[in-house]
């Protein structure tokens, strides 16, 4: 098959969990990578080496271990900055996950400052967002009296931009949307939408949680008017650890936002009556940061860069096309989202007539095939297509065509188990 990662079997050896056998001696077929990715040995080893030999708190520690830990942590920031092509490494803020990164922006926009939202202001999101890019904006608009609006979706699973001129107006203060949908797989037109939003003076927040694992991002190379003001992603989906997320924000915007969490490391000076704050990135990193996690994330993005994001994208693309073909052979199966592999990411949600997604996932699991069932934290997108929940397969750089065959075969088995057709 064209487009697969060279030496795929060797790459798979990097991931210890892929050797797991499950109940009844079944081999693991892990097709839940949009939920969380598996970790290569080099990421695990980097964290272990840190904990066993260099562990100390950072910034404030003056001793040798402290210097080693600080350098390792800040090297993690450098690596993430390079991974994103960030104009400046100080624009990379470590959060605990993508959700916190989105909340950081939404929460600080409620407080006094040049960007504070109020009545009459509008925030525009889309119907295909993950709950983590919906609820923070609901909280912000409820709390400030601003109004929440959103782009709808076409029947084909894309953003419906037909009313863009009506939605984006001089009242629009924030436009927040996902780069790649975690449910529909849709890849959204980031450059175009960002330009439109900038034209009305809104700031643009892009959720790259599903994009960062599989698309090459190069912020510095983007035309300034097409470059979002904020881009977030989460460590555990880019073969990195849990407990860490990334907020990249332009220095300009981050400079204008008031502090989010207060505490150690984010201050310049503190008296009982008042405090002043450190410059970015520290201003937004209160308390002891995820140190070992930043070391792991640094190793993770290095690993991805070493394989090459373009090669990973090609691989995902080939696997996705193959999966769409395979799924099309299953009677009664309907894919939610674009059917053209070119225009989508590697998460494919689907329904099967007559079997509830939970029951599908359960039967697949009995064959060792791990997929997700439910609303995938995208209830509004499910509601848009008139479904309560769906089954989702999601591949990644370590997925083989043979695993897709196993999925399709297990789906056939599911149908026969529940005596369909």
């Amino acid at each position, binding site marked *: 098959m064209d487009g697969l990662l060279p030496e795929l079997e060797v790459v798979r050896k990097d991931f210890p969990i892929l050797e797991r056998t499950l109940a009844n001696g079944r081999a693991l077929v892990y097709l839940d990578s949009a939920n969380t990715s598996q970790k290569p040995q080099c990421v695990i080893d980097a964290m272990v080496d840190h904990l066993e030999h260099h562990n100390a708190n950072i910034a404030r520690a003056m001793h040798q271990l402290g210097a080693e830990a600080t350098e390792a942590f800040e090297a993690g920031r450098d690596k993430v900055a390079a991974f994103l092509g960030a104009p400046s490494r100080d624009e990379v803020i470590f959060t605990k996950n993508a959700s916190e990164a989105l909340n950081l922006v939404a929460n600080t926009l409620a407080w006094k400052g040049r960007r504070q939202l109020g009545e009459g202001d509008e925030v525009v999101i889309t119907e295909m967002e993950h709950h983590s890019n919906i609820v923070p904006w609901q909280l912000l608009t409820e709390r400030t009296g601003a109004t929440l609006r959103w782009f709808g979706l076409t029947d084909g699973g894309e953003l419906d931009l037909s009313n863009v001129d009506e939605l984006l107006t001089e009242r629009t203060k924030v436009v927040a949307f996902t780069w790649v949908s975690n449910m529909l797989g849709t890849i959204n037109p980031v450059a175009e939408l960002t330009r439109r939003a900038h034209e009305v003076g809104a700031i643009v927040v892009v959720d790259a949680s599903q994009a960062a694992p599989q698309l090459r991002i190069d912020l510095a190379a983007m035309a300034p008017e097409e470059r979002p003001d904020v881009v977030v992603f989460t460590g555990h989906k880019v073969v990195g650890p849990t407990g860490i997320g990334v907020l990249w924000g332009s220095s300009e915007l981050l400079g204008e936002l008031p502090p989010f969490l207060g505490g150690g490391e984010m201050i310049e000076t503190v008296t009982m009556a008042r405090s002043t704050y450190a410059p970015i990135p520290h201003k937004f990193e209160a308390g002891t940061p995820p140190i070992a996690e930043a070391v792991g994330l640094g190793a993770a993005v290095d690993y991805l860069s070493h394989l090459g994001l373009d090669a990973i994208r090609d691989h995902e693309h080939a696997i996705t096309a193959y999966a769409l073909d395979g799924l099309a052979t299953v009677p009664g199966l309907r894919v939610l989202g674009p059917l053209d592999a070119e225009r989508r990411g590697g998460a494919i949600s689907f329904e099967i007539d007559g079997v509830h997604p*939970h029951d599908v996932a*359960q039967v697949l699991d009995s064959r060792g095939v791990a997929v997700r069932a439910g609303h995938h934290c995208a209830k509004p997108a499910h509601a848009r297509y008139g479904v309560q929940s769906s089954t989702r397969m999601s591949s990644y750089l370590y997925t083989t065509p043979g695993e897709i065959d196993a999925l399709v075969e297990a789906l056939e088995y599911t149908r026969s188990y529940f005596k369909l057709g």
Partner: protein
Amino acid sequence: MDLDNLYQDIILDHAKRRLNSGLREPFEAEVHHVNPTCGDEVTLRLHLDGAGDDASIADISYDNQGCSISSASASVMTELLIGKTVAEARPVHDAFLEMMRGKGRVEPDEDVLEDGIAFAGAAKLTARIKCALLSWMAYQDALIQAQEAQHG
């Protein structure tokens, strides 16, 4: 785990037949419960005849969206509880909760749970426990509301 152990015939049968489904009048309480993990939902109505522990469960009607485990569980529950008094229903309810929360380690009593013992397989699967419990939690909630309404 063995699939047939989870999807016992009793369950597949109840999931298909959905005994007592559909929303009916009269009722003293209506509740709506959601499984936040998957979005499965049940709307459940309870009609009591009488007051206090001696009240009889005259009807439980429901409308649900859910997997075979959650549909079957609603069906089995209504079949077990309708016609019992509130006091008689309590040990059945308790036994079902105990079994489901026992991580597969609680040996269910068939005399009390009847068809309900078919869910012993689901009790071993962390992810399916909530499916089986959804309608039972809704009943409990509805009972509290109905009794409060009577006292108020």
